């Protein structure tokens, strides 16, 4: 485990991360033609504070919808999400979020993009923000590119910037929607270890959406498997591989077994 980077993250060592309780969540979307589509049907699960949970499933199974409701970006049709003791009705300051696309603002430098959540919040001083940005740049291995513009970076670099931005406010809950989907295999494996280093250090609660089963197994304490039409959780698999995880675990039999078990649960 790369402790140097987790130190650089400067996150608090004691985890006070909030648990997440998703309770009987239903989400119905209305399409343009007036049809109703049930994206989520009566979905219930709990995530303990500081737990790393991945959600896998085929496209259209509502995994992104669950995450967006937890993030307070959209409302549920029925049911509720508890973040700690509070019902989620709007985006919470406790949450850091990384989207499928990097969604960087092209008119801001990389440094200002990373600083954005803190600037919007307006609580940290300029010097504090600058120092934190430097830490985060080092952590995602982008030291020295702070003054460049997003348009000058590769897709992988842009995605790392967006992950640094998600960590800017030292969130106790990290929501990630297929954040590594666009990265090449090597960068992706590297980012797995970086993410685990950050997580080991400060133990935020992580909800990680992916369709990559091996990625889910490597990273998580638990993997929730979802099915589509209607979207629901069909399995809850505990990943009892030892931590800290190391790259060579990918070659072990029990790693492959867990992957196969999850794959068998995903409907085609």
């Amino acid at each position, binding site marked *: 485990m790369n402790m140097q980077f987790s130190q650089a993250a400067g996150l608090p060592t004691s985890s006070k991360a909030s648990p997440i309780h998703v309770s009987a969540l239903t989400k119905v979307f209305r399409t343009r033609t007036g049809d109703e589509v049930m994206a989520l049907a009566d979905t219930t699960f709990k995530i303990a504070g500081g737990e790393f949970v991945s959600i896998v499933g085929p496209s259209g199974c509502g995994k992104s919808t669950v995450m967006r409701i937890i993030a307070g*970006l959209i409302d549920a049709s029925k049911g509720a999400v508890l973040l700690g003791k509070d019902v989620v009705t709007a*985006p919470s300051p406790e949450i850091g979020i990384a*989207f499928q696309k990097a*969604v960087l603002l092209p008119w801001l430098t990389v440094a200002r993009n990373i600083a954005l*959540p803190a600037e919007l*919040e307006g609580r940290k001083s300029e010097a504090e923000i600058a120092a934190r940005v430097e830490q985060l740049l080092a952590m995602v291995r982008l030291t020295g590119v702070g003054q460049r*513009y997003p*348009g000058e970076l590769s897709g992988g670099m842009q995605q790392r910037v967006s992950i640094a931005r998600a960590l800017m406010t030292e969130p106790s809950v990290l929501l990630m929607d297929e954040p590594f989907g666009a990265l090449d295999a090597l960068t992706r494996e590297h980012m797995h270890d970086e993410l685990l280093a950050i997580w080991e250090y400060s133990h935020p609660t992580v909800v990680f959406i992916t369709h990559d089963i091996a990625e889910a197994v490597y990273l998580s304490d638990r993997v929730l498997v979802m099915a589509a039409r209607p979207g629901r959780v069909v399995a809850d698999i505990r990943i009892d591989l030892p931590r800290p995880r190391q790259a060579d675990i990918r070659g072990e039999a029990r790693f492959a077994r867990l992957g196969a078990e999850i794959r068998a649960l995903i409907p085609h």
Partner: protein
Amino acid sequence: MTDEKAGGTAAIAATLAGLQNSRLGTITQQVTIKILQLLGGILAWELLVQGLDVDPRIVPGPAEVLQSLWALTISGILIGAIWITMQETVIGFVIGAVLGIGLAVILSEVPVLKAILQPYIVALQAVPKVAVAPLFLIWFGFGMESKIALVISILFFPVLVNTMAGLESTSEEQMELMKAYRATRWQTLLRVKAYVALPFVFAAFEVSLVLALTAAVVAELLGSGTLVGLGTLIKIYDARMNSAGIFAVLIVLSVLGVALHAIVVAASRHFLSWSRPV
């Protein structure tokens, strides 16, 4: 001289030639082309006028026009006229742009207001502004105000419509990002929408600044008091059947139009450097 030496000399010569080609060479080349274009145009003009034996009171030759231009310049009349017309154009441009952008922001932030005003905007936009100029003369008199009013009316709608389109062209992802990080409405406007709208605003500027100059001249043609702008000059020469004088003013207007356009293009390059593909 040995072969080796000759080779060395040739290499140096080639390097020098390369240097000239790369930087100074291209500039000299471009300037030469521009001068040749200009001289060629003037020559063609002169040949046409002489060859077709055109009456100089209808289409004057280049010599007469240049003479007029020179006389206008040294008398100081031209500078005075440029100053008047540029004031009308630039003041009208600034006010029109501020009003257009301001209303665009208000309408895009308050959809109810937009719904109420939309039909009026469409209707007013359809009115040919030049046709309203006589009214402006009645309302604001023969001074600079009526000219500025026409410039504003010509500029206002393209800026308003483009800015509104720009403010509404944020992506869903950008809005979601701002929502997730609990940005206030004001923060979203200043930190995202304003930047997304900027290319649209500059596009409107590029189109409408030259229109603004036209509006100022047209307003002067329709009626001006003691202030002598470039349009007024044209009117005076027209009354005297002085085509060479009119041509001289037209050349000045053309140069001013190109200069104003170049300023907007330079400003948009400067402010939109981030949006250029790398």
